[in-house]
């Protein structure tokens, strides 16, 4: 360690690893992880959401799990709630769809209409 620049670099790198502990206030993605969801592949969905957000450098959206939302035939389901917007529930969210939702909805601000089950809170 010989300079402040190096110190800043370590700070930025470590902040990424500590990212989960930071306040995230731009939005929240809830992945339903009931038995039905897990059976339908919700775990892959969860990891795909996290991976895609990370690749896109999005650090202000929280990803959490919830129990079954009661839409078992459309699992895996996720709920995307961006700040100041009505939340959207998506069904049949496999790996590819999860990545698409992150790109189009979270980053692009465009709801992926064909996967929508419901708009607004349940």
């Amino acid at each position, binding site marked *: 360690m*010989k300079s402040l620049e190096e*110190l800043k670099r370590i700070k930025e790198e470590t902040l990424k690893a500590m990212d989960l502990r930071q306040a995230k206030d731009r939005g929240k993605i809830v992945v339903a992880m009931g038995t039905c969801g897990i059976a339908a592949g919700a775990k892959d969905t969860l990891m795909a959401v996290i991976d895609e957000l990370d690749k896109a450098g999005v650090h202000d959206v929280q990803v*959490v799990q919830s129990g079954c939302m009661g839409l078992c035939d459309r699992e895996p389901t996720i709920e995307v709630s961006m700040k100041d917007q009505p939340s959207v529930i998506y069904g049949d969210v496999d790996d590819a769809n999860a990545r698409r939702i992150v790109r189009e909805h979270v980053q692009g601000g465009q709801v992926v209409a064909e996967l929508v089950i419901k708009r607004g809170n349940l």
Partner: protein
Amino acid sequence: MIRNQLLICAGGACITSGEKSVKDVLVEELAKNGIQDEVQIIETGCMGACDLGPIVVVYPEGTFYQKVTPQNAGPIVSEHLVKGRVVSGLLYRQPTSETRAQTREEISFYTLQVKRVLRNCGVIDPLSIEEYIARDGYFGLGKALEIGPDAIIQTIQESGLRGRGGAGFPTGIKWKAARDASGSPKYVVCNGDEGDPGAFMDRSVLEGDPHSVIEAMVIAGFAIGAATGYVYVRAEYPLAIERLEVALTRAREYGFLGRNILGSGFDFDIEIRIGAGAFVCGEETALLRSIEGKRGMPSAKPPFPAQAGLWGKPTLINNVETYANVPPILINGAEWFRSVGTAKSPGTKVFALAGKVQNTGLVEVPMGTTLRELVFDIGGGIPGGKAFKGAQTGGPSGGIITADYLDMPIDFDSVKELGTIMGSGGLIILDEDNCMVDVAKFYLAFTVDESCGKCTPCREGTKQMYQIMERITDGKGTPNDIGKLKTLGRVIQQTSLCGLGQSAPNPVLSTIRFFPDEYRAHIEDRKCPAHACLHLLTYSVVSEKCVGCTACARQCPVQAITGQVKKAHVIDQATCIKCGSCYEVCRFDAILKE
């Protein structure tokens, strides 16, 4: 790819209540569910709410699980992490309603605090220097090297930071005196000899955020022109020593200690000195003698350590909490520091809340916070609906703040006016069941024990005071005892060599001042109003209420209770050892305690 982080509080109290076994269960459960690569477990320093431990916080949600045991920890993995269902049984139950808090932000114990000194405790992994850096660690040092010694000292002076070890001496003046002192080499010392019974903020900072102290000591060394620093920690703090050692090694690897720090040409290193746990070694001149390898005994001041300290050389000595305040002051400036607290005592103070209060633990609040806010809003009030009687501040060197002063803003100067001291921040809450004479006797016993014996007023005087106190609580006090205690106390205060002796009479004088009736009751009526002093206590059977169930007679360990079945029993006062077990076991309120 990590999707969740589990923060487990690995502060001293949580470790004692089983944190390691909880962690083992969580590790096992993660593996059982095949998600060990997706969830990271991080052990942090003290989260403060020690009575709720062991504590586990699940991120990103920040779900706060308390009183986790190896038996109930499993569902945090199998329910929360696997199925997304919050384990509601482990959430904190709000004291005033039936609802449960999901996160720390919903618990008043946390929301009313301002964490500056404890900014990283319970948030980062204390063994990770990178996490410290990520929270702006060592940027204060970077700034310090850039602005130079004079500007550093000016910033500390302007901030108004005062010594957190007890006396509240302006830190900037100390630093300037050490810089201006002639003599070489100079030394920087950290006083981590936390001795007040009940105070553990310094331990928590060393355990939870050791780099904050290291960084501040390097800054101090640069400011006064020293190349060597010593951290004096007591041997009773093995975890603090262990984590400090790891932190020192990491700091050397990263070049924050050693030669040519951050390319500035400045050299500095730190060594740990382990004390044997003598209270007097918290006194700075005694501490310095102890570092020199001599017997820890104080010497007269002046000369002050800044002029002639370690090995007679100029030495800057500050307390752990004082140092932990320094890096953020350099980063954010003096104005920022003054933005909380009172005009003459800016900043925050960490208090160790203990005794008769719902939420015990470590709390950091702005100076000027009232005792009412500390005890009732943050502390959750007195358990069992009992009445608040007073708070002992400053441990054995302090005194009582009574219920009349609940709304007085607490800072260095206001507590002094009440005849007590801020001390290191120990705050023991007392309720109606505490006898003030007994409490004062307890603290006096502590100083009698810890007096180093060098000067007569402290060695002999405290012993004489203790014998009078013992006489009073034994029911053998005489009417002029109070006068004797006051005279002795004043003489000891004025003639003792060091702070230990000078402050030793405080608990007695303070309780005489605020609770004269309790002393009189002990001396004149031979009664202890709080029923705490055993010799002044009698247990007897109220024969009208006694149904002769024999429960008390069977419970009595010395067979002092006799009587026939279904007939009133009798306690033989000569045999009774006043253990109170009959009082506890009786279901008919037939035992009278007076």
